[in-house]
């Protein structure tokens, strides 16, 4: 039993390392073997949530390889979304929503005006959750994407609101000691 838990911890740490590799280096593919190893390990030990987050990493990987892999990434995410939404924490859920929306937006065949709610709904949920967490980096990304979508839809007031929130979070990120930055309403 102890051996298993130790192995489990080691693998979990490996996954985190993979994430860091990906983020730090420009080359996303470096994280690939680690993510795959985590996937197979989690599968054999029934660590469903950990597996889901490994799949999410894979999806991010595919997405970063190009927009012609967007569909593949999307189907990966859709396969694990119930697990992530049902059992994952706020951060994992928000990340999953954001990656899903990025898949849709990268897909050249997808038209925002045809089905806006497919991207708006996850973004709203993600931004709400990230606000609660005060996870500025990801929240900024969510608001950024939201502003882009509103822009495409021609909903200018909503776009402005999202852009303001984006700015607020970016500034909070740069001033981590909580200076009250004035929000400019335009």
């Amino acid at each position, binding site marked *: 039993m102890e051996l298993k838990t130790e192995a489990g911890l080691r693998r979990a740490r490996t996954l985190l390392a993979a994430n860091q590799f990906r983020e730090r280096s420009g080359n996303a593919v470096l994280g690939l073997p680690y993510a795959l190893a985590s996937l197979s390990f989690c599968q054999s030990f029934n660590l*469903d949530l950990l597996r889901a987050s490994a799949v999410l990493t894979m999806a991010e990987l595919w997405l970063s390889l190009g927009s012609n892999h967007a569909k593949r990434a999307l189907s990966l995410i859709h396969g694990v979304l119930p*697990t992530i939404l049902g059992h994952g924490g706020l951060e994992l859920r928000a990340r999953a929503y954001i990656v899903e929306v990025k898949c849709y937006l990268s897909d050249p065949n997808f038209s925002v005006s045809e089905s806006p709610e497919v991207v708006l709904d996850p973004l709203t949920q993600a931004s709400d959750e990230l606000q609660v967490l005060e996870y500025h980096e990801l929240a900024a990304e969510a608001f950024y994407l939201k502003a882009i979508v509103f822009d495409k839809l021609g909903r200018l007031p909503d776009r402005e609101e999202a852009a303001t929130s984006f700015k607020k979070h970016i500034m909070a990120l740069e001033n981590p000691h909580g200076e009250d930055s004035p929000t400019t309403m335009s």
Partner: protein
Amino acid sequence: METDDAQRVLPFQLQFDKPLASQIKLAEWNPEKDLLAMVTEDSKLLLHRFNWQRLWTISPGRSITSLCWQPDGKAIAVGLEDGAVSLHDVENGKLLRSLKSHAVAVVCLNWEEDAQQIKGDSGSMTTYEDRTSRFLPPAPRVPRIQGLVSGDAGFMDDSEDSFQELSSSSQQRFNILCSGDRDGIICLSIFGIFPIGKINIHTCHVPSSHIDQQVKCQLLNASIYKVALSKDLCRLIVMCSGELVKNEEESENWQMAGHGMHGSHCLVLDTSIFWNRKNELHQVAQQASNIEELTEVIRASLSIMSKQWSDAMNTFHEKFDSLSNLIIDHGNLTNQDNSTDTFLTLFQFFFFILFCELISSFYVGLDSSSQEEFLSLLGGSRTSPPVHQFLVNSLGEVGVKRVSKVVCGAGKELQLIFLNHLQPAAEIIGFRMGELRGLSRWRARYQSIGLDETLISNAAEKVGMIIVQVEWFMTLLSSVVLQFSNFFNWLLKCIRLLMSEPSDQLLPYNSELVVIFLKFLYDQDPVRQLLESSDADHIIEIDVETMQRVKELVQFGGFSDCGYLQRTLAKQFHQMESSFKEAFLMPFTSISKKIVCMDLLPLFPLPASPVSLAVPMSVSYYEDASQAAVSYQQSCQGRFVDYVSFQVPDDSFSNISNCVAIIRGFTHDSIAIKNGYTSLEALLLCLPDGYHCVDLSLYKESQIVLLLNETTTTSESSGDACMMIVQATDLPFVSISRSTCMDSWKLHELKECIIHLQLENEKVRSIPHFVVAPLAVSSSRGVACIFAARKRALVYILEEDEDEVSEAE
């Protein structure tokens, strides 16, 4: 008959011609195996093998009005006259499940399975994985108690046993059971278990898409004959009778009844939600049906436990009530003496004061109670006469042992039921609800089918509360049983002492526990309070500290409803059940709203007086090979062509008699018209002279099987019959234009182009009996069964021909 010709071949091979015990009114072939289910006139359901060996017979007790097999052949659905639909196992006819979805007789049933495997193309999910088997032990079944089963419960036990068999086998493929009744209500359920939709034909607004946008049509007094889902579950064809009325203006000013078109109509309902949302509905139905089964396990467990415990407590009180009677009698006989008249030592005196304080909470009347007597006995005073008499004479050692066995045995049984049934069931429900909660959070996919996050979360919370309460109950039960057995040990010692027998070999007891028992448990029953559903509103007292802790836990994600510890287990269970009902009602109502009427075609007029129509009709769907367009593959259109065939009653149209009509392409006509063409085609087949139609059935590859009787003018009904197969695609269909509004009977237009059937030109087999409906034809097995008026059954293999060599019959 022409034996001069060289080897003439008789179509269809006669398997056998067997006598029947009674006349048959319904018959259906199993789609996967060679089994024939038949319903007799007195509503017995029989299942026969292909060699006519009878497998089983059952009598549901009520009149059977319709019959339909599950697409994989493992169960059969039976529609009854009180509106219930029962599912029976194919192996032995056991009742698997009964759904009371209608209020009147269920006239028709149709059970269709999704024709294609769930494809894993981009954008759609791959096959769902039920994670429960990886994390939890197999689901528990309803507990069965030896000897405690009443006649009713025994039946239920059997059915509950196969409950899980039904669910596990039926959940391989997505399938829908559709049932229609006499009042125009159609009910749909997934797997035949999970109700997913209810449509009232009367509220269907028929769109007239063609010219007049203002004109809306509606049906009055409709009664359904036949329902048929297409093989891709996209369309539902409903054959019904009723009065079609038009609303000329926008207001709700319907035409007076009687001025509409009364007759038989064919409707198409749009059920494409089942195709578009197949994966999601499949997942939700799977979880929901399992949850319902386990809820049933919990309900049955609670009632069995409640009964067992109350039986045990009754035994206990019966025995011990005689003590109070003895005390009362004794109190009447003697003066009210102090129960103690021995000289107490100082120590015992203090002890006794303590006890007096304890018993001050009891009712102190003129007569002392049994508890007081026991307490004083425990305190060391000499036994009062009633207690002595009770313990030694009426109860005795044997009595104590007997009561102890009953009570402690009941306690053990309850614990076993908890550990093996109740607790695992609650945990599995909790897990499945958690899965559903995850799905409900995926709003983009699941909100449209009615999975509401709030309702599901609420239901999940209720399950969590049940799990906590179950644990708590277990602890309480163990403690109660321990106290009872402790009390009985003490009594045994007392009895031995009173009878001056050695008492050192007995089990030890704890005096404090006896005191607590006498104070709290002797005349109260906390176990029953928690279990008994009639007493469910009882509020349990919880100390302030615990309540405070519960409130604090809310901050950490605990249950938002803080009062759950104050509720009895029974009450909590009721609340959980109603939260499930609420949660699963949402998909039901959402999906029902999405099934709308697409088109309506008036078929033939009928006399206005309600006459129970027994017009032979058959609906089937065939793959459209001609539609090569790949673009249709992913959508709901054009993959299957519907064929609707029925006998046209002779008095419907003046110049159409002895005809059978076949209509095809109706389901997609409304879409076709938008694209500028019409797909609806029809033809009228005039049957050969001297024959009239008894029954008909659509067979595979667009063939139609007709069962005809010779029309005899003589009084003896000894005419012959024949069975004929006609290839419909060979016949010249006429395109029906829909340009005029819906106020004419379209078939009327076909009177010019009636096709006359000649016996010589078709594949005909003569039958040497006068036959009656039903005609049971199986497309998948290629067999047909015909019933003769003289109570005989003839089975033919339709795919093989017989050589008419001179063989002895």
